[in-house]
């Protein structure tokens, strides 16, 4: 409506601004691209084939996918209701709850892993009770899922919280006047409205989970075949065979990029 009048207020020639923005933007791009190019320049197709042929690497890769995808599923099941609660329901301590949900994003993951240990470890607060019902998390694949979920769930929850808060209340009100129950409104109006954010949040959550290192190694340990995901395998290789570590890093990168593009394209739907 006012677009044309805004445009007329802009200076006619971009002049220096574009040059400055171009230089800074280009520098930023170079900053991200250079390490990738560095990684690629050190690796030959032969290296990649050799690494992918190694059972240890294949095991780490599959474990990474398994752990990160299970964690994504857990994050969805827990994160959707959590985000809805934080965005829509007024309850005492909501501000604190919001802070707590964001905390793992700023906490060093190693500290997160230690915290998980004090809660769910063998001698942790809930460890005894968990052991009684036959659940042992530390140094198990389930523990790796817990560690990854702890670190990555906030990415999904915060994205979805903003999306829930941004849904036009008139749409949900219209559905209510038409007789729709809260569940039906959620299913037919609210969730479809947040679909783009759901795709973005899932991609972020999953990507963060795939790269998770600190909380996993602290809480779940570094057991080949059980908790040694790709980032842990890269770390171990760095100590013994730096060339292999670089190749593994590149493989992780390629898989991440491929899945991110696929996930966002599939669920975003536009």
């Amino acid at each position: 409506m006012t677009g044309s009048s805004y445009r007329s207020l802009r200076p006619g020639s971009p002049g220096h601004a574009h040059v400055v923005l171009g230089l800074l933007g280009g520098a930023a791009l170079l900053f991200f691209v250079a390490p990738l190019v560095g990684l690629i320049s050190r690796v030959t197709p032969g290296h990649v084939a050799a690494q992918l042929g190694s059972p240890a690497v294949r095991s780490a890769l599959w474990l990474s996918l398994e752990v990160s995808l299970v964690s994504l599923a857990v994050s969805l099941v827990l994160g959707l209701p959590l985000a809805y609660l934080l965005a829509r329901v007024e309850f005492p301590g909501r501000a604190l709850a919001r802070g707590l949900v964001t905390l793992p994003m700023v906490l060093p993951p190693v500290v997160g892993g230690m915290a998980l240990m004090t809660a769910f470890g063998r001698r942790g607060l809930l460890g005894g009770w968990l052991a009684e019902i036959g659940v042992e998390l530390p140094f198990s694949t389930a523990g790796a899922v817990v560690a990854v979920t702890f670190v990555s769930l906030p990415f999904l929850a915060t994205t979805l919280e903003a999306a829930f808060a941004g849904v036009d209340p008139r749409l949900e009100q219209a559905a209510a006047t038409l007789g729709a129950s809260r569940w039906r409104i959620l299913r037919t109006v609210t969730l479809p409205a947040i679909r783009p954010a759901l795709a973005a949040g899932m991609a972020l959550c999953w990507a963060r989970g795939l790269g998770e290192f600190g909380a996993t190694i602290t809480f779940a340990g570094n057991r080949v075949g059980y908790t040694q995901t790709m980032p842990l395998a890269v770390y171990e290789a760095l100590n013994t065979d730096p060339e292999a570590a670089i190749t593994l890093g590149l493989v992780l990168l390629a898989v991440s990029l491929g899945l991110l593009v696929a996930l966002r394209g599939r669920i975003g739907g536009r």
Partner: protein
Amino acid sequence: MSLAVDIEARRGGFSLVVRFTAVAGSTVAIVGPNGAGKSTLIDVLAGLVPVARGSVVLAGRMLEQAPGQRLAPQAREVGVVFQKLALFPAIDVVGNVAYGLRARGVARREAHAEAMAWLARLGVAELATRRTGELSGGQAQRVALARAMIVRPGLLLLDEPISALDAEARAGARALLKERLAAETEVVKLVVTHDLEDARALADRMLVLDGGRVVADGAVDELMRDPSLFLAAMRRG
């Protein structure tokens, strides 16, 4: 079937105190300047804003009787055409119209057949499979009308139903709306508008709101004969 409203509602620092009745089949225009309380009245009757005190009775059913005792929007049988229509963007046109029937447990096939009949009645059957985002203003308005009427509400609320349309679409929309509203002889219809031409064309009675109070109430023709009763209020908007 009739409507009896005697309520006080508050929204922020604004208070709305309104008392009126309307008989089934009649169309009442709610007019007044911006901030008069027209949209608040719509929201109160739809059950979207609670009343501070008072009652709303529709066809013998208590919609509101005291602050804690009120029917949820879902249980009211009140149809609303919102000012911005609020069509569901993720659902196609026929699904939008069928929505209220589906919410009442009607099978999909039946609900869609009924929705198609309503779309045909409003002259937009060919839009059935479109997304709501592809519709023109006039088309969207017809779809919203069909969506609200398909569940046979006892009270139909229309918030500025044609003000968003351009001048060309307006005359046609007004004529169509007049015909549709006249056909609903069992329904109480309230039309919020700031356009006196719309009020004259669509309604037999006019309720003028200003500052949350009713400042004039009477037959449209009568009020038009002595517009001084309400024009001062209208101009301030």
